[in-house]
């Protein structure tokens, strides 16, 4: 079938392709580019924090308003334009069809449309820096009144308001949601309808389960925010008063709508990375995944709990303390399923033949760092402590200890693991290890000391501490400087990765077909997989984690090997 296709031009092969693998790679490349933009913004405002009033190399002077805009857009980019496309869309598009043994997504055209809309949203986001007034600077949560121009202006000039940083940001986020919703429809329909023969629900690899659970949480939490975003846009461009208390509206409404989506979103980002761990840990321990079914049930439980915890972001927003207690309990409860999932991974490691190859390093690093993020989350989940620590660097350090390992360690683990699959080449493992260790060390240097800054009461939304003699005391300013130097080191170490990536693509170090000796279906196809993926299509006889079975000479048994015990 492949040979019947005539040679395609560069444009139809790489830009307007409907092939799930190309679309996955498009999402990944765009996500990596946006990570560069977000990282650059972080570098600029971190430099300003450590050395206030100094001119910043590769930028210049940073004003207070620009500082706010940079922090805001950094948060937006890292969550919606890096985390979502890389973890959900890139993994989902690349892995779902090939791991369930089929040719493509259920709706390839819709898939291509989704990636084009995502590209448009990224363009609008970056364009918002260059409109009069600059990008939006009211925090990535876009709380009114900062985000609702109509609050101050009852008769805004429609076009001027439409082309303001605020409106463009709302539009960009809305388009991004549309792109992700299209992707989500595809994930669910593909997984339900297009699995290979014999791939019953309990034989599906954990990552496919997790990507689908993530897509479901996303679809069912984003709706109210889409409605809320319309209201916010109308407040801006038409001067309505949905969020204006003076006109009967309520700014708290936005906070609830935002976090009703925003908290499940954390799990939308976390689940795909946990799925990556579930694929990598058994491979490099040569052991079956511990408690496969329990892991799925725990993820479903966490999906249910995730919509019951949102108001823990609003403990200082003046909500009823009785309600705060409810959300505190919910927040602490949701740590139980995730602790269960992590314990299952550690039990998988227990007594295994562990080999510390590069993907495994990233996976173990993820588990270790996420532990710190998760445990500090327990403190913050309790409303009594949160009222003290809220809006300090403690919160900043906490969520970077959860989201950084989640987005970047999860991505790099997956990247080093599946790179031989999507390129057919072999990355340089030595450079991979350098990349890991430098990232690991600089990441901790960047965020660990900030916990102490937060406990000392340093507020997180101040651009220049030198004006506040009470809180700019030592050693906390030195900690800020250590953090900034580490941030620069962290960004520079990513160039090792880029060099490794590009030089490997240009080299001809061919990879073997199944370099990690894994059992899942994607390794049955050629590397890189041809259009259509499989010839013939595989038939599945066993679960995804049959490592070191007794009475089998090899220590792994792929999913398409007939199982005499259970047919």
């Amino acid at each position: 079938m492949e040979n019947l296709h005539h040679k395609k031009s560069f444009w139809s092969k790489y830009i307007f392709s409907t092939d799930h693998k190309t679309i996955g790679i498009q999402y990944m490349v765009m996500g990596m580019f946006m990570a560069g933009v977000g990282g650059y913004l972080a570098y600029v405002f971190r430099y300003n924090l450590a050395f206030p009033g100094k001119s910043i190399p590769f930028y210049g002077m940073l004003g207070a308003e620009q500082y706010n805009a940079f922090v805001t857009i950094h948060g937006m980019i890292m969550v919606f334009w890096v985390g979502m496309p890389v973890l959900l869309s890139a993994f989902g598009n690349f892995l779902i069809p090939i791991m369930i043994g089929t040719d493509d997504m259920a709706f390839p055209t819709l898939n291509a449309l989704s990636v084009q809309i995502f590209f448009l949203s990224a363009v609008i986001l970056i364009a918002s820096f260059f409109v009069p007034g600059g990008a939006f600077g009211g925090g990535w949560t876009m709380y009114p009144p900062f985000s609702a121009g109509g609050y101050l202006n009852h008769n805004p000039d429609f076009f001027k308001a439409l082309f303001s940083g605020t409106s463009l940001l709302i539009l960009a986020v809305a388009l991004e949601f549309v792109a992700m919703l299209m992707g989500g429809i595809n994930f669910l329909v593909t997984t339900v309808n297009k699995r290979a023969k014999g791939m019953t629900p309990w034989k599906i690899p954990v990552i496919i389960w997790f990507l689908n659970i993530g897509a479901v949480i996303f679809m069912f939490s984003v709706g109210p925010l889409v409605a809320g975003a319309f209201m916010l846009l109308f407040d801006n461009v038409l001067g309505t008063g949905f969020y204006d208390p003076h006109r009967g509206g309520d700014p708290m409404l936005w906070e609830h709508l935002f976090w009703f989506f925003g908290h499940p979103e954390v799990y939308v980002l976390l689940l795909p990375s946990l799925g990556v761990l579930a694929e990598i840990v058994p491979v490099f321990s040569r052991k079956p995944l511990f408690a496969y079914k329990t892991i799925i049930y725990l993820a479903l439980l966490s999906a249910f709990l995730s919509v019951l915890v949102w108001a823990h972001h609003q403990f200082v927003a003046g909500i009823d303390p009785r309600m705060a207690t409810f959300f505190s309990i919910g927040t602490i409860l949701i740590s139980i399923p995730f602790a269960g999932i992590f314990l299952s991974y550690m039990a998988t490691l227990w007594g295994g033949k562990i080999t510390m190859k590069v993907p495994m390093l990233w996976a173990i690093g993820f588990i270790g760092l996420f532990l710190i993020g998760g445990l500090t989350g327990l403190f913050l989940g309790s409303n009594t402590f949160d009222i003290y620590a809220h809006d300090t660097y403690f919160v900043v350090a906490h969520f970077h200890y959860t989201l950084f390992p989640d987005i970047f360690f999860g991505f790099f683990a997956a990247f080093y693991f599946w790179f031989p699959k999507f390129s057919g080449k072999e990355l340089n493992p030595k450079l991979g290890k350098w990349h890991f260790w430098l990232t690991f060390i600089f990441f901790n240097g960047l965020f660990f000391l900030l916990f102490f800054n937060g406990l000392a009461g340093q507020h997180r939304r101040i651009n220049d501490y030198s004006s506040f003699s009470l809180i700019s005391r030592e050693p906390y300013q030195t900690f800020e400087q250590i953090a900034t130097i580490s941030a620069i080191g962290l960004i520079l170490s990513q160039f090792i990765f880029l060099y490794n990536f590009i030089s490997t693509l240009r080299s001809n170090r061919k990879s073997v077909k199944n370099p990690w000796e894994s059992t899942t279906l994607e390794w049955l196809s050629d590397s890189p997989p041809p259009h259509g993926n499989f010839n013939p299509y595989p038939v599945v006889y066993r679960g995804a984690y049959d490592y070191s079975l007794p009475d089998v000479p090899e220590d792994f048994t792929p999913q398409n090997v007939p199982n005499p015990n259970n047919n």
Partner: protein
Amino acid sequence: METNQNHLAIPIIKIPQGRLGMWVLIAGELVIFGGLICCYLLFRIRYPHWGAMAANTNTFIGALNTVVLLLSSYTIVRAHGAAVKLDIAKARLWMMCTLLGGVMFLVDKSIEYAHEISEGFTFTSPKLVAAGDHVGSLFWSFYYIMTGLHGAHVLAGMTAIFIVMMQIRKGNNMHRVELVGMYWHMVDLIWIFLFPLLYIAK
């Protein structure tokens, strides 16, 4: 009827691909309207004064539009029935009836909007604001955002029905009649919720 290119994979849950996709899309749309309706209800409970504002909506046209949408849902069911029997001419005729219903709905809605705007009830209702009735003006903001978003869905549904009507001319994609029908029922269902909330509850 179903075009599944992947002949080797056997679906375990046998729902045709397009229908399953449409169900997921409808679920996603319903949460958008669900969120909007929840916001409206919270404010409605807080402000009993909104009842007096709702008295200014035209219940007669609202009721007429409900009947029109219900009838157009019936005709799209008949179109689906004809499509199953591969009766192209009849299917297209019934779809045409649904399109007519959609046009009639939008015409009614425009008459209603024109009437309300002429009385000073707009998205921001400057007349009410000038009189100090800020809470009342918020009702009209909700009224226009809810009916406007619904109207946009009516228009989208009509576009989809029109496109499918063109596609099935030569007997292609007959299964899509059912899919646009499902979408049209969703549009209808949302109106069933909006009508009592915005018109009847005074």
